[in-house]
């Protein structure tokens, strides 16, 4: 015989509006083993908690049922009340009559009836609950940060400064990310390199940071506190241990590849560093453009290298890294605008995308910071087209958030560097950050022409060679407008990295419709994911500007720290276990588990469950044909009893 206390919460009117809460409490009092049943306005408040604690003592309760909101909200709150009152915390049952009842009906009769059914089931199950003991595991103190753009750099530095060891993994041969490609940043017009390169250098110098460039994650094993990650170090064909960064090799190399860093606007050597402030300041060889790899002879770089650092036989290698927590900061790609044939990108040389223009402005870029077009001319008239692929049902439905502001920045820089007329074709001007509206005002004052209408088409001018016509409706006058320009800049959607879904699979993350990583909760857990110990920062979660990215990076660092700051951590006791005597070795459990917790022990011929990976979802138990798997806290007896209770209604 157990002694059950039932506590019905009103949640203000959230529940009380569509469930008759006092009737529910009176009903509870009639159920078997229920010793006390009460309702209260806010059960999670201090008086509410004290009421439960007092009743535990006064009525010698040994099972507590709280009918309230989702267990995601307050299960921990009430477990603590039980623990403080000397009861095992797993003897608590939460019945969710808010999200599952009151919020999904307007009918108080229906709501009350459903709440009674759920409560009846809960009472039946509660009688069979058993006390459980949480497990404690060791925690690896290191953190891995994946992606070394501004988000990854910031997170790595914050963590390293707390004394934690950080592995910073970057797939390119240099760190820096997109921010290192920009010339100026809005709205302050700070020089991007001036604020970023000191941080890049700090990464290189920091004793707590291991920088792994030209590296990609190839396998992830383990669980929160104990990740075991395999990194593929791609062959650079240059031994960075020997290289002294004299760069004599890059001068002599006859190979020509397309400069990814300059968005394909110029060529680079086959052995190269992407840009002058690259970190590490050591070259790599691009196989695809290297004369030796293509034709079997050349090796000029090898001849001029005094350090004997060139190694054409270098192979990809694999590095094993252990970490307690991981931060993903893998950034974004710019949408490919070629399929939008109406804008002529890739067809007319005068049409540029935003990142190409960033490189044109940059003093380390292909034109040395001068705005000259592919044909060498300086443009006399320029159109910047907003929302290309963003806010567009046919492409990316989201607003990319930064384009309005960088398009304004472009207008300013064009005005500063050329004598061109500048037109902005926009739908809505979104300037909702600190200092952004002021920046918009400033640009209006610079005599930029704003046309409120989305650019509809870019065409070759029939009259002048090399001149383009931008067509749109100026929605303010309602006129069809044709603007002759020399240069068109497209501000395309920011989209997830091409391989974002692969990365999501490696780390067991969900992605949203577009492919951006899903956060655990859009408001209250924006940096956590559904995988414990994996955090996200920057544009890999959704488009955002540099200030927001840096803020997220700091936040993700703090979140990761909450895990690795402790030597040990407590894990949920509600996991599954295998009774080896009944296991029939079918391995259904191994196949269905989304967390990889069950594994087959070949020597014993039975399945076993890694409790640290187990989330207690019960999938394995439900597919086990011999009932060898017991889902603790959701045993067959407990679940069947609950169903019986439910079905009495």
């Amino acid at each position: 015989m157990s002694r059950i206390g039932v506590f019905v919460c009103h949640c203000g009117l959230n529940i009380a509006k569509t469930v008759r809460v006092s009737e529910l409490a009176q009903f509870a009092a009639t159920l078997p083993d229920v010793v006390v049943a009460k309702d209260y306005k806010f059960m999670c408040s201090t008086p509410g908690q004290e009421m439960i604690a007092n009743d535990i003592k006064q009525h010698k309760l040994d099972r507590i049922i709280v009918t309230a909101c989702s267990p995601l909200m307050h299960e921990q709150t009430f477990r603590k009340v039980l623990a403080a009152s000397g009861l095992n915390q797993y003897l608590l049952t939460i019945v969710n009559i808010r999200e599952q009842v009151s919020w999904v009906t307007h009918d108080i009769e229906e709501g009350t009836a459903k709440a009674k059914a759920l409560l009846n089931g809960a009472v039946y199950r509660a009688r069979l609950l058993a006390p459980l003991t949480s497990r404690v595991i060791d925690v690896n103190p290191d953190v891995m940060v994946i992606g070394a753009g501004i988000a990854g750099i910031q997170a790595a530095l914050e963590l390293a400064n707390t004394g934690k060891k950080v592995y910073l993994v970057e797939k390119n041969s240099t760190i820096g990310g997109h921010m290192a490609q920009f010339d100026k940043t809005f709205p302050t017009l700070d020089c991007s390199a001036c604020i970023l390169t000191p941080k890049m250098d700090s990464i290189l110098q920091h004793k707590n940071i291991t920088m792994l460039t030209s590296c990609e994650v190839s396998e992830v094993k383990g669980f929160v506190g104990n990740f075991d990650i395999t990194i593929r170090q791609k062959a650079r064909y240059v031994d960075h241990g020997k290289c002294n960064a004299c760069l004599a090799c890059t001068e002599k190399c006859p190979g020509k590849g397309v400069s990814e860093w300059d968005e394909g606007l110029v060529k680079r050597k086959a052995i190269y560093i992407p840009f002058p402030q690259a970190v590490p300041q050591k070259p790599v060889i691009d196989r695809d453009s290297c004369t030796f790899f293509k034709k079997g002879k050349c090796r000029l770089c090898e001849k001029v290298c005094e350090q004997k650092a060139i190694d054409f036989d270098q192979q990809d290698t694999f590095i094993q890294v252990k970490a307690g927590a991981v931060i993903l900061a893998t950034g974004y790609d710019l949408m490919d605008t070629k399929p939008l044939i109406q804008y002529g990108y890739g067809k007319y040389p005068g049409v540029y995308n935003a990142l190409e223009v960033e490189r044109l402005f940059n003093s380390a870029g292909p034109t040395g910071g001068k705005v000259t077009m592919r044909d060498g001319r300086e443009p006399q008239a320029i159109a910047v087209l907003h929302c290309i692929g963003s806010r567009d049902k046919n492409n990316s439905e989201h607003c990319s958030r930064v384009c309005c502001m960088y398009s304004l920045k472009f207008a300013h820089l064009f005005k500063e560097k050329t004598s061109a007329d500048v037109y902005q074709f926009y739908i809505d001007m979104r300037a909702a950050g600190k200092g952004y509206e002021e920046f918009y005002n400033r640009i209006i004052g610079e005599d930029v022409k704003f046309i409120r209408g989305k650019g509809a088409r870019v065409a070759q001018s029939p009259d002048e060679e090399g001149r383009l016509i931008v067509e749109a409706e100026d929605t303010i006058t309602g006129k069809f407008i044709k603007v002759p320009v020399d240069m068109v800049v497209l501000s395309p959607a920011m989209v997830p990295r091409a391989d974002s879904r692969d990365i999501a699979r490696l780390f067991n993350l969900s992605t949203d419709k577009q492919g951006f990583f899903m956060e655990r909760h859009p408001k209250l857990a924006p940096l956590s994911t559904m995988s414990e110990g994996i955090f996200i920062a920057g544009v890999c979660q959704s488009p955002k500007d540099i200030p927001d990215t840096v803020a997220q990076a700091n936040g993700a660092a703090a979140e990761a720290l909450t895990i690795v700051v402790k030597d040990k951590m407590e894990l949920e006791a509600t996991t599954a276990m295998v009774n080896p005597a009944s296991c029939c070795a079918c391995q259904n459990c191994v196949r269905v588990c989304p967390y990889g917790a069950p594994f087959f022990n070949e020597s014993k011929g039975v399945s076993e469950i890694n409790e640290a990976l187990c989330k207690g979802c019960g999938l394995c138990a439900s597919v086990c044909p011999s009932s060898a798997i017991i889902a603790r806290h959701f045993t067959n007896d407990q679940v069947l009893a609950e169903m019986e209770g439910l079905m009495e209604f």
Partner: protein
Amino acid sequence: MSQTVTPYLEMSQAIMEAGGEALKKCYQCGTCAGTCPWTPITDFNIRKLVRFGQLGLDGIEDFMWGCSTCKFCVDRCPRGVEIIDVVTAIRNVYSGGGMLPQSLRAFVGSLSARGNPWSGDQAKRNDWAKEKYPLYTKDKEYLFWSCCTVCYDPRNTRLAKATAELLNQSGLSWGLPSVDVNCCGESLKKVGDLELFERLKNNNLDYFKSNGVSKIITVSPHCLASFKKDYGDDYEVLHLSELIARLVKEGKLTPKKDFGGVKVTYHDPCYLGRHSGVYDAPRDVLKSIAGLDFVEMGRNREQSMCCGGGGGGLWMEKLKGERLSDLRIEEALETGASVLATACPYCITMFEDSVRTLNVDDRIKIKDVTELFLESLDVNIEELMAGASDLNFTCKM
């Protein structure tokens, strides 16, 4: 007109209820009006039409007839607004109150009284065929849906005959509908008369069902799009150009005659291209003809220009300088082609008008892809046409 307006949300609600639900999604970016072929040459502004619809503003009736339902805006709309549905709904709601333009009254009246838009005698629908071609019966495979325009319009009866002749040459088992059928109703629906459209449609569906029709060949892309979108999924509907392309590919029809370098360009009908996604078939047919020098116009395929004949445009008068078909003829002339081929009776009618009013009918001929293909089979269309002028018809021109 007063510059002060007041939202009239009951009208906006009525538009939504008439099928224009999508208008609430519009965020007025202007992509539609910037894409619309009418914006540069007329006062018609599709974005404004939607805007007036959103607020139910007075004055909407002044410009609701400008749209030719070419679907260019729908394809480009970033919000996925079904703009043609909005236009249709607006016309439905407003034209009920006697707002139908004069030129469309005869059109709707004829459809209501005679089941075709050309004031043709229903009993004479198949007179062009002179009992030379078979009627559809249950043992036939294909119904050749002869559009009203090819049955009654003298220029287009050529196309009807060419098609029938070609089907005979193909060896397929086919037949014509009886005179009991009506217009498919596509343009009528776009003009907003949804009630009459349902009547015509149900009459045609009765014919299909009672005659066991399952495969339909259309000569007009308007019938094609209407059957596919509004007549349900029980029918396999093919445009003639798709059928010819298939027969050529299978080696069942082979062009014989060499055209000797005749330069031909092709105009994508909106209802074949953007509405039905058929771009390659007519081109494949043209390219199969020996000695035919095929050239594209600057705007082609998905970006093709509209002739202005859709959405009721065929029956409405347009001022000189406001005709899309004139602009399209100029584009065709720029290519140096001596033949402008197309695959739609409406386009043919619009272009024939334009070459005459522009006085260029000696420089460029308007032909259907089917007509050209039949010529390549060495069939003399003129012989087929002998006696065609006996037909009793009343229509525009």
